[in-house]
């Protein structure tokens, strides 16, 4: 009886957690690169119930019924809890922004030989001002799908949260005021479908666009994460790598096996081969509002049902407390 009370209470608690997770998904419906979380509900560990001082009991296979021993009734789950919030790494829609510092990342990276899911991320890092010239420390590197960037006052490419965008050698990308660049790239930055960083100049005579690779930053730091669900979600759109999963740079041989991309094809979104970046576009959140709203309503109803169970049990208890044993009641 009272066990049921706790079971329903655990249900309410779990549903409350789920509601929080759903509310957070809904709140981030316009956050670029956001990946929705799916709350996973799980039953409490099972208990084996037995009746004391009774030889008559259920015959549970594998467990002998011994005379004089408590008879086993069966298994019981005494509740539910939300064990984890599983991020869904499905690709979000992409939308055009025409901003040179917006980049949509599209990939159909296939699972590895063991069937592990693999996903592609940008690597970003928070770096101390003094260490900007060096590659970022491994522990500072974070992974994100948010390609909605801007340029800070020092000329570095940064995310909205202030993380520096890294190139393939884990160095912050500087496109303005860079002494090694000679000239400022700024709005003339071009990022190819393969993530190569280039500068567009217009030939003074032929008026044709010329693409030259940035001398210091060859490619964006794209990282393939095996089993991305093992990444620690830090909020602010970034994930942290921790533990035994594999993070590797995108394989250049894999990237180059496609036909070479001719210059000037930056206007149409294309997924070439196994991954592609599209400048001037950004990836939207993959939250499905209809699905989230429906889940919220079912959470509400389940919550209500659990409350009814508690009140019913409470009513029964009331009877036990106040009516049983009353003479001439």
């Amino acid at each position, binding site marked *: 009886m009272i066990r049921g009370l706790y079971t329903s209470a655990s249900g309410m608690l779990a549903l409350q957690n789920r509601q929080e997770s759903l*509310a957070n998904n809904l*709140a981030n419906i316009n956050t670029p690169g956001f990946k929705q979380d799916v709350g996973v509900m799980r039953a409490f560990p099972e208990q084996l119930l037995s009746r004391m001082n009774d030889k008559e009991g259920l015959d549970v296979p594998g467990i002998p019924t011994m005379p004089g021993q408590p008879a086993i009734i069966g298994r019981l789950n005494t509740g539910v809890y939300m064990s*984890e919030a599983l991020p869904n790494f499905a690709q979000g829609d992409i939308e055009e922004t025409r901003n040179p510092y917006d980049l949509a990342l599209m990939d159909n990276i296939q699972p590895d030989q063991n069937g592990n899911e693999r996903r592609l991320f940008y690597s970003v890092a928070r770096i101390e001002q003094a260490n900007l010239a060096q590659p970022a420390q491994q522990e500072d590197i974070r992974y994100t799908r948010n390609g909605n960037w801007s340029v800070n006052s020092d000329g570095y490419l940064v995310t*909205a949260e202030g993380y520096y965008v890294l190139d393939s050698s884990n160095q912050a990308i500087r496109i303005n005021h860079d002494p090694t660049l000679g000239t400022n790239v700024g*709005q003339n930055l071009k990022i190819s479908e393969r993530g190569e960083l280039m500068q567009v100049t217009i030939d003074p005579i032929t008026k044709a666009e010329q693409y030259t690779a940035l001398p210091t930053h060859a490619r964006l730091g794209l990282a393939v994460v095996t089993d991305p669900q*093992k990444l620690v979600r830090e909020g602010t759109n970034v994930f942290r790598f*921790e533990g035994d999963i594999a993070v590797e740079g995108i394989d250049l041989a894999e990237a180059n096996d496609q036909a070479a991309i001719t210059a000037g094809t930056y206007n149409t979104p294309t997924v070439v081969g196994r991954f592609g970046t599209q400048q001037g576009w950004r990836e939207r959140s993959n939250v499905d509002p209809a699905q989230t709203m429906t889940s919220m309503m079912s959470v509400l109803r389940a919550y209500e049902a659990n409350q009814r169970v508690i009140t019913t049990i409470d009513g029964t208890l009331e009877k036990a407390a106040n009516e049983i044993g009353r003479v001439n009641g």
Partner: protein
Amino acid sequence: MQSLNISTSAMRGIQQALDNTANNLSNIDTIGYKRRVASFSELLTDSMNEQPATDNQNRNTPMGIRIGSGAHLGMTKLDLGQGSLKQTDVPTDVLIEGDGYFLVTRKIKDANNITVDEESRFTRNGSFKLSYDDDKGYVLHTSSGHILTDENGANIVFPEPVKNISISPDGTFSADGMPAPVKIGVWDVENPDQLKQVGENLFDAELAFGAGPQSKYTSAYDNGVTLRQGALESSNVSMTEEMSQLVNIQRAYQLNSRAIGISDQMMGIANQLRSR
């Protein structure tokens, strides 16, 4: 219940995005206006550990359950796309074709009429008027009273009112009654996003008093920028885009307000536990 705070934070951000869209829409006819694009970002995520100790197997994610904190407006980014051309045939209207800014200045005087400082501003608004300035003579100024400068950052001043004004694509300003042609300065700003917007379509050029623009900026003519006389650059706000953005954020607002409603109902249900 955290979910109330989560949805509230999102609604606050959405409201700010709505403010931004409203400002873009209200400047749909402002010459040289550059729209801003609101972009959201996620707030911190916390990991709660309220699981039974036995819950350490068959997990896909690290230990604990994550509770997010919602979203906020991360930044509003300047969209520097070129606005469409608006033909006016006014001789003192100039359009910049390409990336570049006019430098305009205004003297700031103290009570004794002595210049103590100078406001240096960048603008893409090429709608200039020729009028008389007490200190100098005839000048080209913007609607905010800032005077257009030449390629050295000095004010363009004529002793007499000029006629038959002609501005060539390379910025040379010549007219009848003018001693010698001057060249209108157009400056290349590497990172206009980082300049402070001071209203009236102006960006703070962040030049110290007396410092010329050459100390910080390079001339934009080297990058293929040309001028066009008798035309203005319209605002780069597109009505359809802003309206679809409006619909988008209104729906997001509604969804989050529904989420608050549902969380509230859940709290109500919890409250009714003992009210039978």
